[in-house]
């Protein structure tokens, strides 16, 4: 009996040894909290994790009627529409550039990767108080004034300029990381496909369009999905660039910041509304990911069909 449970060469045992720690960790720190917040979302749960007052879908309907929450979803869409394509294009450009560099490859890769190790909080504060300071002596305002312009209010609202600060800080922080992922993808492309293409007379753009990009698709799919999920979870740079003690402006308010403010703002703990919010966000992320998979996998399916 024991022999059969252990499996051939103890394979079942080893399987358990390797998988169990991760599985236990995942269960305790991910699945249980997810299920618990789903449970809490149906209750009036203030300051307790063992609520007694069942309210059905009230928390959900409250959030779906909250103008600020709906605005925050729009903020995410705008943010993602800027940051996802921009980061992808910049990372890809850097990756292509560095892939062909003859010397100093390691140096340049490190140079572009280093920002990835900077804290979002620290970067946001530097952006807020130095680069995008509203004052006339802010770095960018000094530049504008030196070239004869008027200083502008970057983060004060009333215009869309805060997006420049928010998008640029995240771009600077994450572009190096995705560059590394794309370089890894580029190096998987067999050299002989390029040689064959060269023999056929393909150069420059055509090589990129017909060889590099199609071969890079699995990496691109992963990179874009990660970018999108990260954009959805944006919190640190928004909170530290625009928040003040006890207040956060109504604009540029991504979903997580808004949920944090209405469920934990002012020292309260409204876990029911918080739980409902996270469930809505999780559902949206899942839908986005499925849609994206379907769109980006479409061509692959078409090719497979053509082969059949």
């Amino acid at each position, binding site marked *: 009996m024991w022999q059969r449970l252990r499996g051939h060469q103890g394979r079942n045992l080893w399987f358990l040894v390797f998988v169990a720690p991760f599985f236990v960790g995942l269960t305790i720190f991910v699945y249980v909290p997810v299920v618990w917040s789903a449970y809490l979302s149906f209750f009036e749960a203030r300051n307790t994790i063992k609520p007694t007052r069942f309210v059905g879908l009230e928390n959900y309907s409250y959030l779906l009627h909250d103008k600020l929450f709906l605005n925050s979803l729009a903020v995410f869409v705008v943010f993602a529409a800027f940051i996802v394509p921009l980061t992808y294009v910049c990372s890809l450009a850097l990756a292509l550039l560095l892939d062909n560099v003859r010397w100093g490859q390691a140096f340049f890769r490190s140079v572009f990767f280093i920002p990835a190790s900077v804290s979002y909080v620290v970067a946001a504060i530097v952006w807020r108080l130095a680069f995008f300071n509203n004052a006339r002596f802010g770095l960018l305002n000094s530049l504008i004034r030196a070239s004869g312009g008027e200083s502008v209010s970057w983060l004060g*609202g009333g215009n869309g300029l805060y997006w420049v600060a928010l998008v640029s800080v995240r771009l600077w922080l994450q572009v190096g990381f995705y560059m590394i992922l794309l370089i890894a993808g580029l190096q998987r492309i067999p050299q002989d496909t390029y040689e064959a293409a060269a023999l056929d007379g393909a150069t420059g753009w055509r090589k990129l369009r017909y060889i590099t990009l199609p071969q890079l698709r699995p990496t691109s799919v992963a990179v874009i999905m990660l970018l999108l999920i990260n954009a959805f979870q944006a919190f640190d740079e928004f909170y530290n660039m625009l928040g003040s003690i006890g207040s956060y402006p109504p604009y540029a308010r991504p979903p997580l910041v808004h949920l944090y403010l209405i469920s934990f703002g002012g020292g309260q703990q409204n876990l029911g509304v918080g739980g409902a919010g996270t469930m809505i966000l999780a559902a949206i992320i899942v839908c986005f990911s499925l849609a994206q998979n379907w769109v980006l996998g479409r061509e692959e399916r078409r090719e497979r069909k053509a082969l059949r």
Partner: protein
Amino acid sequence: MINRRSLLLSGGGLAAAATLAACGDNNPLDQPSGSASPSTGEKPALTQWYHEYGEAGVKEAVERYASEYADASVKVQWTPGEYMQILGAALLTNEAPDVFEYEQGGSLDMIRGGQLADLTEIIAPVRDQFNQPVIERFTFQDKIYAIPQTIDMQLLYYRKSLLEAKGIQPPTTFDELVAAAQAVKSDDIGGFFAGNDSGVGVLGTIFIWASGHDQLNADRTEAAFLTNEFYEALVAYREFVKSGAVVSGASNEWYGPEAFVNGEAAFQWGGLWSLPAIQEAHGDDFGVLAFPAIGAKGRPVVPFGAFGACVNAKGKNVAAATDFVKWLWIDQEDKQIDFSTAYGTHIPAKDALAAKTEQFKSGPGADAARYVAENGFSNDIMWSGPMGEAYNAAVNNVIVGGQDPVDAFAGFADLAKQELAKLAG
């Protein structure tokens, strides 16, 4: 604030702790932990939590207070980071502290959840000695759940010499403030500064009080400020911003002294905690004011915040913890003065103690203490997160976005009613 000295100190502390730990189990410095059950004849063991105070020396001071208490052994836990969230989570477990500080004397959720012991009895004999607006804010349905420790406030700093040069008196109404800010503003210095968002964030609820209203009606069933006077106050501030006399960009936010110290604005809305830095920079050349009254029904306003010492009602030693809180925050007046004034500038919670200290006896400090007593306001206990967010959004839409105040606050009355009904349970 982390500076090199405190870093070095904490490094030394860690090394010392490591050395002591190596000494083995019979370490004489080892205090019994909070979970140890007290046997008869032994002193009860209590744990006490504080949030991280920025000033150097506060941690050592509160540890010293605790060690001087004879009737229980009190272990202080210093809690950096998101104190309110960490405490809120801890109170749901068995590892909860026996005594802890909380802003404005405990939240509605905590009171409703039965987490706070009723301290009305121990404070009743001395209730009148405490700062009145603070003690009223700490009272919920005739009960008090926390003893005020110390008071913080916001106030308006102004440069005396700049006003005198133009022959202007310190403003007592909002119109006078606007006129003064416009008069003193020049190419070298701005008029009024209250944050890089033009002050919309920090001044938000002040517009309610300064235009002569309260946030909620007496029964806490609806919003009590949606009047023409309030809307006119918002429009008045919008005009002030548009006039160019409000500085919308400075070297730091309103909560730092930098903008005022560096001479970026003649008026700055700031915190009392900035007073020492401002005194050092400008000497006698500054004064403090409350936010001036807006409109005919208006009144001057200073918002205050006070941490209060609470007792965990579900703790193992409620009686011993209550005795300790009474000893430290009601009886030990020298410690209360030390806590408020020796490491930074906070107003002692008892009026008589404030009058005794150097900082609050005369000058701007005395003015500040008087403003809290006469013009002190703070958010109502039922002014919840969602209500505050909706309010701030509407104010921002009026002042920054240029929306008509009536439109911006169109849905607010209903939202407040629903939210308050929900909170009333």
